[in-house]
């Protein structure tokens, strides 16, 4: 049989040197500029408000003063210590939540019966904000690490569970049939079909679970801790060190941004085919 199919589209344009090192394409530099302009505007407004003396530094310190405090806290290593202890809690809590949610989600996703049995419990618990459990957590676990971590585990758990379950249960039956008729057995189908089909939903679960873990982290550290970014914010408030409050907040923002960047990259790699 002759092969009349057209070959691949011809030559590919070589990216310039700059573009090869910076992932910028076309008008991306313009977009970068626009993005930076928003950030600059925010800083400018902040600088103006504090610089013109409309608010007392105790209410809102200037950007420069905040930056100074930040670099000072970076210099003596205290900021890194606080950030690390918070990150430890987040990742440990998220990890435990994931370790529980994954097998449970796989089971729930593959069994209609289990889903129907467990759904009411989930739907009842879900609307209660995790932070509402802090009092119970302290009563049961005291004010050491575990009360904080348990809140994080709880907060991250539901977004993870729901999305993993959803992903597994929504596998296209025609893909399963195709695999079966190609000779795949149960384990093959699970590994090559079900699991991969569920990855987009799982990534959504990981993102929102991670977001929830951060919310719970700060909330629980506000109440009972002597280190961590939430503690930094709380202590700043008690001692009227508003600059320290801002440093804590900004650090959380930056860490959140970086983690999101990491997850976005992971998603791009895992979901190349999308």
């Amino acid at each position, binding site marked *: *049989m002759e*092969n*009349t*199919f057209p*070959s*691949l589209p011809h030559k590919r344009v070589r990216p310039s040197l700059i573009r090869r090192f910076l992932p910028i394409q076309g008008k991306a530099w313009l977009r970068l500029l626009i993005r930076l302009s928003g950030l600059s505007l925010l800083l400018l407004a902040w600088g103006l408000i504090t610089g013109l003396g409309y608010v007392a530094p105790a209410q809102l310190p200037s950007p420069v003063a905040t930056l100074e405090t930040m670099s000072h806290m970076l210099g003596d290593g205290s900021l890194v210590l606080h950030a690390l202890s918070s990150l430890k809690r987040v990742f440990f809590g998220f990890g435990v939540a994931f370790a529980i949610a994954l097998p449970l989600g796989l089971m729930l996703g593959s069994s209609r019966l289990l889903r129907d049995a467990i759904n009411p419990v989930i739907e009842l618990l879900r609307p209660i904000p995790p932070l509402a459990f802090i009092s119970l957590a302290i009563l049961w676990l005291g004010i050491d690490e575990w009360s904080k971590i348990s809140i994080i585990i709880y907060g991250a758990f539901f977004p993870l569970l729901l999305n993993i379950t959803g992903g597994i249960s929504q596998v*296209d039956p*025609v*893909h399963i*049939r*195709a*695999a*079966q*008729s*190609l*000779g*795949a*057995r149960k384990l*093959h189908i699970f590994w*090559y*079909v079900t699991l*991969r*089909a569920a*990855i987009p939903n799982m990534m959504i679960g990981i993102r929102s679970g991670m977001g929830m873990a951060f919310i719970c982290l700060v909330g629980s550290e506000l109440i009972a801790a002597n280190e961590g970014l939430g503690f930094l914010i709380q202590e700043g408030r008690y001692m009227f060190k508003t600059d320290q409050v801002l440093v804590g907040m900004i650090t959380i923002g930056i860490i959140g941004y970086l983690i999101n960047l990491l997850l976005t990259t992971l998603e791009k790699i895992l979901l*190349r*085919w*999308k």
Partner: protein
Amino acid sequence: MLHEHAPILSVDGVTVAFKSPGQAADRHVLNRLKLSVEAGQFICLLGPSGCGKTTLLNCVAGFQPYEGHIYFNGAKIEKPGKERGVVFQEYALFPWFTVEQNVEFGLRVNGVPAAERKEQARHYIRMVGLAGFEKHYPGKLSGGMKQRAGLARVLANEPSMLLMDEPFAALDEQTREKLQTELLGIWEKQRKTCLFVTHSIQEAVYLADRVIVLQPNPAHIALDLRIDLPRLRNRHDEKLLQYQARISEALREGEREYGEHLSVITA
């Protein structure tokens, strides 16, 4: 040989009933259907939409539980198996795998070593005219190319029978005709038994050795016609047009029958 003239596929007294909502009795889509297929035959199944073509194909594929007997090479069909390759209308390629990985899938799950399966995948990808697209993901391919990949995926597994459910129905006219011709090219080489569902009379007479017209409620064979013309056939051949006329006659008769049936109910 003992089984020289034994059919490769024999459908014997097959019944499938679905629960119909709001009605006490189940609706029989297939009722004691009988059909036998010889090895190497290219069979086209024709019939009005909803008459049970997919249901029958699904029984043979092993997707659909049924009452009665379907024997394939002497063994009762109870579940899907790699000796019966299925080409789906909606392609059913795994979107998370490249074309190459899709084509290798069957070999991989059947334990063929990596080097060997790569070679075999390449062979079949070339056969369906997809050389150069090995590393592409299905999402980026046109409908025609997707179905080529779907065909290569099944062929690479070397099934003894191909089950195809309106594989070209979603394609445009030109692509469809091209793929029909190429499918025949492959079939001439491999002489695999084909059960091909279509709703196009032209497609059926162009492809098949044997055209079977099904009529609904429950599905029964209204016409079983041998097409005795050498391939490749001229689509405008006088004889081909005569076959087409007989087939549309059989389809129309069913309509009339069914219409009378309806008028009796409504009277």
